[in-house]
């Protein structure tokens, strides 16, 4: 198949939307996977009484990490602050949503490929999966709004950006379907 044939046989919108979905999907799978791990690691390593031990900051480690003693001590305070700022229900909810988000994001990579190839089911599946991702963003947004200022400052901006990106993908897939239907 020549380039010219490729250009005319498959719609432009599907090619562009597909590649954008793949790029974002690859990145989001990593982001959500990391978020799930983050919650699991912090929850399982916090001392039961909530009292953090003193920082262990050997000089050679500080040199290797390129940090000062004050920053080394702050690393403990930072984790403690994040754990204290999270209500009891938050880690499990966030882990569940991030886990589902990671799976959906990976599926969106497959959907993106299907869009680029313009398989018959691709645009319908794209609307469903991109909507699912936008719904996860909304649920994460709602969860974080119900915590406190510390976690809102950390999470809300990023979640809002992802929601806007997913909304654009949904609308793009819908617009593509409508233009195909009216062609």
């Amino acid at each position, binding site marked *: 198949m020549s380039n010219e044939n490729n250009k005319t046989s498959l719609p432009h919108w599907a*090619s*562009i939307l597909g590649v954008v979905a793949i790029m974002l999907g690859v990145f989001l799978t990593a982001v959500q996977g990391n978020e799930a791990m983050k919650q699991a690691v912090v929850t399982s390593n916090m001392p039961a009484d909530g009292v953090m031990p003193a920082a262990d900051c050997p000089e050679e480690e500080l040199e*290797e990490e390129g940090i000062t003693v004050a920053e080394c001590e702050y690393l403990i305070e930072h984790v403690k602050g994040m754990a204290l700022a999270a209500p009891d229900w938050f880690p499990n909810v966030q882990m569940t949503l991030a886990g589902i988000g990671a799976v959906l994001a990976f599926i969106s990579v497959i959907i993106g490929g299907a869009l*680029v*190839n313009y398989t018959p089911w691709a645009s319908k599946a794209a609307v469903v999966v991109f909507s699912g991702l936008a719904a996860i963003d909304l649920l994460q947004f709602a969860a974080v709004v119900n915590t406190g200022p510390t976690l809102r400052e950390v999470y809300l901006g990023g979640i809002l950006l992802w929601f806007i990106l997913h909304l654009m993908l949904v609308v793009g897939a819908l617009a593509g379907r409508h233009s195909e239907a009216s062609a």
Partner: protein
Amino acid sequence: MQRQGFSRTAVILHWLLAVSIFFLFISSWWMMGLPLPSPELQFRAFPFQLHKNIGITLVIIILMLLYVRLRHRPAPPDSTDMAPWMHWLAIAAHVAVYGLVLAVCITGYLSSAHTRWDTVFWWTLEFPRIAAPNEEMNEFWGELHMWTAWALLGIIAVHVSGAIYHAFRNDGIVRRMMRW
């Protein structure tokens, strides 16, 4: 007759590699902000071991991908309307991606091998020690690991830009790596 795109195995390996690389970048930025390890503080234990597991697995994946790509070469793309410099940039970026992924993984392993921490691959297979703990060597390989990782991120940006460029032109080139 040669097929138009890459084999399905190559496609799956390629995207597995992509997700893993981004996960390693994002998780490493986070895990370096965890408290330094001590007998009471073990926040870093799981993420660091996972980082090593995925890194070692990446070496296996990239070698498999290289094997699959060299064994089943797809038909070359119709590059008549692609500027020669663009064609050569694409080839150079591909070679650099392969080289840098291997370099990042190897330097990371060598850095880790000079620490007091053992490597237990996916928590089952204990790797033999190849070196005694040595802070200087750990730092040397650690620095190389970091700089090759930044270089990899830069070259990935070139690679991704190329893919998006071809997607906007809808010239069928990205479709070669998206055949499910």
